[in-house]
């Protein structure tokens, strides 16, 4: 039984088939999903996390079917994500953002909150300590009390990562985490991800346009084009795959990064 397995996932928006019978499986480590704009990568994440309902197919996590579950239930099972166009709680502070991410791990009831019970006080101080630890991990400890909106772009991406980690996921879905970062920043982030995989045994699915990052960090790469999986394998295999080269170069006449929307 795989940690995570998706079978023939199909999603239509009106007449457009955004995903067409996509299979995907992950056991451990980092798997990347690449593909030109509009290939259906983000849509796949939205289905995995319960934000969209799939029209067909199945998704299981540790053997449990996910389709039909609510996003918060899926998060509670141990899957959390970041967004392509950063979606922080922008008027809350960095640490508050991380604390919200812990929501599904808090076992307190209304009565604990109202009575300030012992377990409430203990939990609150534990949460705060853990949140600081996470901010530390992504290099934002100095900005714990900064309002999310005021953080520089790269910091906001890293804060989103800390917020997703706060849910204690076993599987992390990252939608273009290095977008807008310099090559140097991207490298630091990838080392961080590798560290997470090594220390916490985390599995990661990465959507990336930055090919250098993808080739460096991925254990496996899946290529989507027009909602279909056209290739899968080790970074090297994929790089040499004819259909992939066609998808990126042949029809569009530009390299992977040239294919990006401006």
């Amino acid at each position: 039984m795989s940690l995570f397995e998706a079978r023939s996932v199909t999603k239509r928006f009106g007449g457009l088939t955004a995903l067409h019978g996509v299979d995907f499986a992950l056991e451990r480590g980092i798997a990347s999903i690449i593909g030109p704009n509009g290939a259906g990568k983000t849509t796949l994440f939205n289905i995995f996390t319960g934000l969209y309902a799939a029209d067909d197919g199945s998704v299981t996590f540790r053997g449990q079917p996910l389709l039909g579950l609510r996003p918060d239930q899926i998060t509670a099972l141990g899957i959390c994500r970041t967004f392509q166009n950063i979606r922080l709680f922008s008027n809350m502070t960095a640490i508050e953002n991380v604390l919200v991410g812990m929501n599904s791990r808090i076992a307190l009831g209304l009565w604990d909150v109202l009575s300030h019970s012992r377990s409430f006080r203990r939990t609150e101080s534990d949460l705060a300590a853990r949140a600081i630890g996470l901010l530390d991990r992504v290099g934002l400890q100095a900005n714990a009390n900064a309002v999310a909106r005021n953080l520089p772009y790269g910091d906001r991406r890293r804060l989103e990562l800390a917020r997703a980690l706060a849910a204690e996921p076993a599987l992390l879905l990252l939608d273009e985490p290095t977008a807008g970062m310099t090559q140097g920043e991207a490298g630091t982030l990838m080392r961080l991800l590798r560290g997470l995989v090594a220390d916490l045994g985390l599995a990661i699915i990465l959507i990336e346009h930055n090919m250098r990052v993808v080739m460096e960090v991925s254990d496996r790469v899946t290529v989507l084009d027009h909602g279909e999986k056209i290739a899968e394998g080790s970074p090297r295999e994929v790089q040499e795959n004819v259909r992939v080269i066609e998808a990126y170069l042949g029809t569009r006449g530009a390299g992977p990064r040239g294919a990006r929307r401006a």
Partner: protein
Amino acid sequence: MIQALLTVALVVVSALAVAKFPRSVLVFLLFQGSLVFVYRAQIPEWLRRSLLAVALLVLMPAIGYFNGYYLEIATQVGIFVALALGLNIVVGLAGLLDLGYVAFFAVGAYSWAIFGSPHANVIFGGGFPLAGWWFYVFLLVGLGTAAITGILLGLPVLRLHGDYLAIVTLGFGEVIRVLANNLDKPINFTNGPKGITPISRPPAPFGLPYGEYFYFLVLLIVVAVVIVNRRLEDSHIGRAWEAIREDELAARAMGVPLVRMKLMAFACGASFAGVMGVLFSAKQVFINPESFTFLESIGVLAMVILGGMGSIPGAVLGATVVTVLNLQVLKGFSLWLNELKNAGVTVLGYSLADLPTQFEPAKYERMVFGVILVLMMIFRPQGIFPARRRQRELAQPGG
């Protein structure tokens, strides 16, 4: 140090002044203002707390001894403070615009009004009204009934946002009022527009006069409500509400159970109104649907907005300002103008006695109120005591 002395002096002087001039509206306003000053002054926390305690527990009842009307104002302020704090949870924290909030107040009020008056005999045969001490049980019954009503309202509106939500809650408020108006047939539950009276009052302890009794009871409930509000705000529940208000989709993806949190917000907000409704019906002895109109909902919402959405001190101050303005300032101004008229005073050769009664300030309650709100929205949209987070939101160009 100087501030501390000044603050103490201000409270003492204003309290003495009220005792000396028990009729003067201005002097009572001075007393109320001194309390705000105590809240804002840079003085040690213990001093602030003791000053507020002395003012609210000793001075205010003493003032009420000289002028019962002021105690009545203070009690009404307290009732509206609790309502504003309840609505603050729904609108300010969770960001769910509710235009029918007074419905929950009505639910609480009618729950005691029916069982605490002989009216229940019409429905159930004999045995009513319930003995006065049941009132205390009904504070909880009102809380529970209102909370359940809140959940019932919440369920159908879960998917709605902004304008749509506002319209549906507005409709809900009207439905409750219309029910109160028409549920006198076929079974007479509410006695329709005629209302219900006499509603029992609980036995007051220590032979306290009812004015003082209700004042202290309201104060007690307000303190409880403030504590509950603060604890909710500073917990994972409050943070989840904030997150929903900021970005509902991201909140869901981060593990916030949307349905549960929204229903909890509606239920918590409603329960405060339910408790106050029970108290209100006992205090008034008589209630009818007219006490629960749309304008009341808007009034409470205005208190929250005026004070600063999502801010607890804001809700307290907003409720105080609006209630004092309505009950005291405009009414007092009308009285004063009437006295001038009766005394035959002329201004620039114009006899005030010729002034038509339409110009009485008390009749302009809502208008003055509207003007103040408009001015606030233009010059201080974040409210008087804005919540920290609101400040941040409004600091951002383009909202």
